[in-house]
C-alpha cells in the first residue's frame, strides 16, 4: 500500500516536473531549431524544417561575429576573475581562520558587508574612470573579484577549520616560510573547496548581466549575456535566432552542471547546516 502510494506520488512529481521545468527548455530547443517564420508564431510544436545549423551560422555571423568576440570576452573574464578570487580569498580565509586577533572581527564584518550591501553603481564607475579602467575588461575583472570575494572567503574559512593546525606547525618547524607554507603545504589540501569555489563563481560570473551592463558598455568588451540582451531588439522578428543564442549560452553551464553537480550543490548549500 505504502509502496503503491509512493509510486503514484513519484509519477505525479515527474509529470509536474516535466510540465513546469522541462517544457520551457524544450521550447528553447524547438524554437532554436525552427525556421524564421515558424519560430515567430511562438508555438510549442514539432518543427516543420530543421534549420538549427543555419540558425547557428546566422547568429554567430551577426553583427560582424559579435558572438565570438563575446564568448572570448566572457571566457577571459570568467577564467581570470575566478582565478584571482580563489587565490586572494584562500589567503584571506587562511589567516582569518588561523590567527585570531582584533583584526578578525573587522575582516569578518567587511566580509559580511560584501554579502549584504548592494554595490553603489555610479561611484564604482567614478572610481574605475579615475583608474582608467572603465569600459575595459581588466576593470570588469577586478569588479567581479571585489564582489565575489566575500562568498569565496566564507567558503575557504569554513574549510580551513577542517585542516589540522599540526600540519602548519610541522611545516614551520621544517623551516617553511609563510608563503611556502601556504602555497606548497596548505593550498594543495584545499582542492575540494577550491573546486567548489571555481565552479560556483564561474557560473555566477559567466551569467552576470548587471555588471557588464554598467561597467563595459562598449561593443568590443561585450560579454555573452550583454550580447544576448542586445540581440533581442535586433532579432525581434527572428525568434529562431534569439533562441539559438539562448541555447548556445546555456551550453557552458550545462556542461558545468553535468560534471560538477555535487560541488555546485555543496558550495551553494554551505551554511544551511550550521546557519
Amino acid at each position, binding site marked *: 500500500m505504502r509502496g503503491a502510494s509512493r509510486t503514484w506520488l513519484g509519477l505525479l512529481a515527474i509529470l509536474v516536473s516535466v510540465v513546469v521545468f522541462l517544457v520551457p527548455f524544450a521550447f*528553447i530547443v524547438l524554437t532554436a531549431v525552427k525556421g524564421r517564420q515558424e519560430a515567430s508564431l*511562438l508555438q*510549442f510544436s514539432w518543427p516543420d524544417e530543421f534549420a538549427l545549423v543555419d540558425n547557428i551560422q546566422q547568429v554567430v555571423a551577426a553583427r560582424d561575429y559579435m558572438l565570438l568576440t563575446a564568448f572570448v570576452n566572457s571566457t577571459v573574464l570568467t577564467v581570470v576573475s575566478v582565478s584571482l578570487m580563489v587565490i586572494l580569498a584562500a589567503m584571506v580565509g587562511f589567516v582569518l581562520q588561523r590567527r585570531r586577533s582584533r583584526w578578525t572581527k573587522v575582516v569578518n564584518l567587511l566580509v559580511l558587508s560584501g554579502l*549584504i550591501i548592494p554595490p553603489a553603481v*555610479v561611484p564604482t564607475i567614478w572610481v574605475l574612470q579615475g583608474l582608467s579602467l572603465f569600459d575595459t575588461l581588466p576593470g570588469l575583472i577586478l569588479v567581479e573579484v571585489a564582489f565575489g570575494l566575500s562568498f569565496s572567503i566564507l567558503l575557504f574559512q569554513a574549510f580551513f577549520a577542517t585542516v589540522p593546525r599540526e600540519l602548519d606547525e610541522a611545516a614551520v618547524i621544517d623551516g617553511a616560510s609563510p608563503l611556502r607554507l601556504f602555497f606548497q603545504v596548505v593550498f594543495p589540501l584545499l582542492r575540494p573547496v577550491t573546486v567548489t569555489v571555481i565552479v560556483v563563481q564561474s557560473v555566477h560570473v559567466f551569467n552576470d548581466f548587471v555588471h557588464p551592463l554598467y561597467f563595459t558598455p562598449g561593443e568590443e568588451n561585450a560579454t555573452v549575456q550583454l550580447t544576448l540582451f542586445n540581440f533581442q531588439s535586433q532579432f525581434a522578428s527572428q525568434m529562431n535566432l534569439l533562441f539559438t543564442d539562448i541555447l548556445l549560452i546555456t551550453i557552458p553551464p550545462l556542461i558545468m552542471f553535468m560534471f560538477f553537480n555535487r560541488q555546485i550543490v555543496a558550495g551553494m548549500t554551505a551554511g544551511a547546516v550550521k546557519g
Partner: protein
Amino acid sequence: MATTLRTRRESRQAAPGGRAKTKSSYPYWFYLPAAVVYTVLFVVPTLTSFYFSLTRWTLFDMEFIGLENFVEFFEEPALVTGLKNTLIYGVVTSGLKVVLGLLLAVLLTSQVIARGYLRSVVFFPVLVSTIGVGFTFTALMDPEVGLINESLALIGIDGPSWLTDPSIALLSVALVDVWKGVGLATVIYIAGIVSIPREYFEAAQVDGASAFKRFRHVILPLARPATTTVIILSLIGGLRSFDLIWAMTRGGPGFTSDVIASVIYKQYQAGFYGLSTAGNVVLFVLVTAIIIPLWRFLNRKGVDL
C-alpha cells in the same frame, strides 16, 4: 570537543620558541591583495555614495544640493512605486521559495522514485542565464499565442495578460524568479534535512507520529538554520533584483513593475548620476534595515535541544 580544543591550544603554546610571537606564520599581509581590490572597488564606492547622493551630478558638473535627491525620490510617484515594488518582489519571491523549497525538499528526501532526476531538473534553472530565462518566459507568457495561455484556453480558462497587465506584471516576473530560484532553496533545505540526526525520526516513529506530525515537530524546527539561510539569501537577492525584471518588462507597463534597482539604472541612463546614487543609498538602507534585524531575530530564536 572542549578537551580537544584545550589540548590543541596548549600544544600551540608549548610549540618551540618565541618564534610564533615575533613572526607569525600567518602574516597580515596575506590580507593585502584582497583588501586593496575590495577597498578600491567596493568600500570606497560605498562610502562615497553617501556624498554623491547629496549632489546634482551630471556628465558635466557636480553641485552639492543636500537632501534634494531624496526628497525627489520620495515625491515622484514612479520612484515611490519602485520602492513599494521592491518590497513586494522581495517578500513574494522569498516567501514562495521558502514554502515551495521546503515542500520539494521533503519530497526529495523521502523514498520517492526518480529522486536523482527530480533533484537535477529542479536545480538546473539556477545555473541558466537569467536573461535567457527572462526571454523564454516572455515568449511563453505572450497573452495571445503564448504556450501558457494556450494551455489554459484548452481547459477553458481565459489566461491573463501576464506581462502587459499593470496589476500583475510584477507578480508574473516574481513567479519566473521563483521558477528559476526554487532549486537553490530546495538543495539548501535538502542539506538541512539530511543533517538532522536519524534518532529524532526514529523517536518520532516509536511515538507513532504521523507523517504530518513528523514534518511539523521534527523537520520544521530542526531545519531552522536552512530556513534562515533561504530567507536571508532570497531576500538579499530579491531586494536588489534587476536582471529578470529588465529582461521581461523593463519596469513596464509604465512604471508599474519598476524596482529600486531598475530605477537606479534608468536614472543612470538618463544622466542623473546623483539621483541614481541616491537610489543606491535608499536600496542600501532598505536592505540593511531589513536583513540585519531579521538575521538577528532568526538566529536568536534557535531551538534548544
